């Protein structure tokens, strides 16, 4: 497999033309193209432009605030990852337009269960904060093991002209409330999860949670009161991003290992709202990390990955926007760690939630503040 990432000069149709010229001259004809587009771009307009300019139907596009082309973080531009297979590998497309429809859960479950021999790459929308629940629900219905063949992220976006743009485009359709899956066949792949936050103190039990909202813990204690106290002494108590240094670590019920992270989105008097769902009976610890901790864990993750798939031909990274806050001005160090270890094309995205297996590959989890990396090589 040959792969490369190319980036436009800015967000315009003219730069899209330049991008096509660059791909044609430096890469040649691709079997598949993946476009990362800043949400300032109207998906309808740009997807039509891509089809016209690149003269292909074999592509998908998705919104993302920032993405990276190898070790370069790109903002307000378009990047394209061009893929050409040299042996028998291929990509199949699957998508769900609306995850709230009755049959969507069954469709997704059936698709993954019927294609357990493929590697699936998901790009999803925020879907009013429901994507986390959707992922963790269909995860419980997967009938194969280990679950080590699914990775993905939620498109990062923003409000433009009254709509919150975290869209995908595929098969002439704009997916506003669903997800897109690219399924790779005949590939050696491996996915790994870099958390980096260390859990501290005693374990708490969630006694009242609804969706992404956490009300009570332990014997009915108001969680909102506790988390507000964590902000005491900080000048701007309304800026919950300070709490992104200390997300909740959700623990496995069976053996207590770190299952996933949950990041606070907002705090009211009665509850704290997170970027992903929490369940009654879940156990968690408080955790903390500095950028050094995160990069150290990234390094370990990269080494594990390269041990599984040496000499990869393409790599992807989904890294949470909240994680970038903790990485402070060292965001590029995380990316550089992957580039240095993988020594291949890296196409990465800053996401609003990450989708990947848990540490033991037993279930699929929806993550916050996490960096998920994938390495691939054609068989």
């Amino acid at each position, binding site marked *: 497999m040959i792969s490369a990432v190319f980036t436009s000069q800015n967000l315009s149709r003219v730069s899209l033309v330049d991008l096509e010229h660059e791909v044609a001259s430096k890469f040649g004809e691709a079997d598949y193209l993946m476009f990362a587009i800043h949400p300032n771009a109207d998906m309808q307009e740009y997807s039509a432009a891509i089809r016209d300019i690149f003269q292909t139907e074999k592509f998908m596009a998705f919104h993302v605030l920032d993405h990276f082309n190898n070790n370069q973080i790109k903002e307000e531009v378009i990047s394209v990852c061009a893929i050409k297979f040299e042996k028998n590998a291929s990509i199949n497309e699957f998508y769900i337009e609306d995850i709230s429809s009755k049959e969507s859960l069954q469709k997704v479950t059936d698709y993954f269960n019927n294609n357990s021999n493929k590697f699936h790459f998901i790009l999803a929308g925020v879907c009013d904060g429901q994507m986390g629940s959707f992922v963790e629900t269909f995860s419980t219905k997967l009938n194969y093991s280990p679950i080590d063949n699914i990775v993905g992220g939620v498109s990062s976006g923003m409000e433009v002209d009254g709509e919150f743009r975290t869209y995908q485009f595929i098969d002439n359709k704009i997916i506003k409330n669903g997800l897109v899956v690219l399924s790779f066949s005949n590939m050696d792949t491996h996915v790994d999860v870099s958390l980096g936050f260390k859990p*501290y*103190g*005693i374990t*708490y039990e969630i006694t009242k949670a609804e969706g992404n909202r956490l009300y009570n813990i332990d014997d009915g204690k108001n969680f909102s009161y*506790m988390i507000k*106290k*964590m*902000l*005491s*002494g*900080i000048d701007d108590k309304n800026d919950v991003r*300070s*709490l992104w*240094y*200390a997300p909740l670590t959700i623990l496995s019920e069976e053996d207590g290992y770190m299952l996933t992270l949950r990041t606070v989105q907002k705090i009211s008097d009665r509850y704290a709202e997170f970027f992903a769902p929490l369940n009654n009976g879940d156990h968690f610890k*408080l955790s*903390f990390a*500095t950028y050094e901790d995160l990069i150290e864990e990234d390094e370990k993750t990269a080494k594990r990955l390269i041990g599984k798939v040496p000499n990869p031909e393409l790599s992807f990274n989904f890294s949470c926007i909240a994680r970038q806050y903790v990485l*402070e*001005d060292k965001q590029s160090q995380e990316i550089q760690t992957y580039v240095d270890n993988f020594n291949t094309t890296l196409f990465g995205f800053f996401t609003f939630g990450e989708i990947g297996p848990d540490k033991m590959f037993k279930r699929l989890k929806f993550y916050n503040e996490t960096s998920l990396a994938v390495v691939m090589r054609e068989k």
Partner: protein
Amino acid sequence: MRDKIKIKILKNMLEEVTKKYDYFISLQNEKMKETFNLAIRDRLTGLYNRQFLDEHAKQAFGRLQRHDGNIILIFIDLDNFKYVNDSFGHAKGDEVLKKVADIFTHTFRSYDIIVRYGGDEFVVLIEDDKYDKDDIENILKNFVKKIEHTLGEFRISASYGYGVAPLEAKNMEKLIELADERMYIQKQNRKR
């Protein structure tokens, strides 16, 4: 960057974790105390049980070997208790036993070991530097009077016997045997 925020968050986290640990430890201690009490107390009356008496007696006899002093062991058996159970039912019998326990705790000192030894049998183990036979007799006579007064409607009374170590016995088995024998003699005398 943002070092002040990070330090503040860490300090607040430490405070929360410390509070949580304190709470957890006090909860654990309470639970341990509860479990310990369940293991050493008689569920109905709240008095100590036989297991506790055995453990406590071992320690008391150990102390007796190291220091001067006395162990006074009193064996008390209720008279007519069977009549309460047979005539008024076991629930009433339980009520009577609770009242007896209450009289016991108001008669002896908080550090004397009052034990429900069997159904209507009780043992009191007293450790004291001095032994005054008259004092003991007075206490026990008053105790019986209180029992008879409080539980007069059931015609309940009590027989007792006691022994003193090391004066009369060198170990717990002998001491109980002695007190039990004396209680039995008193009970027989009262029946005549």
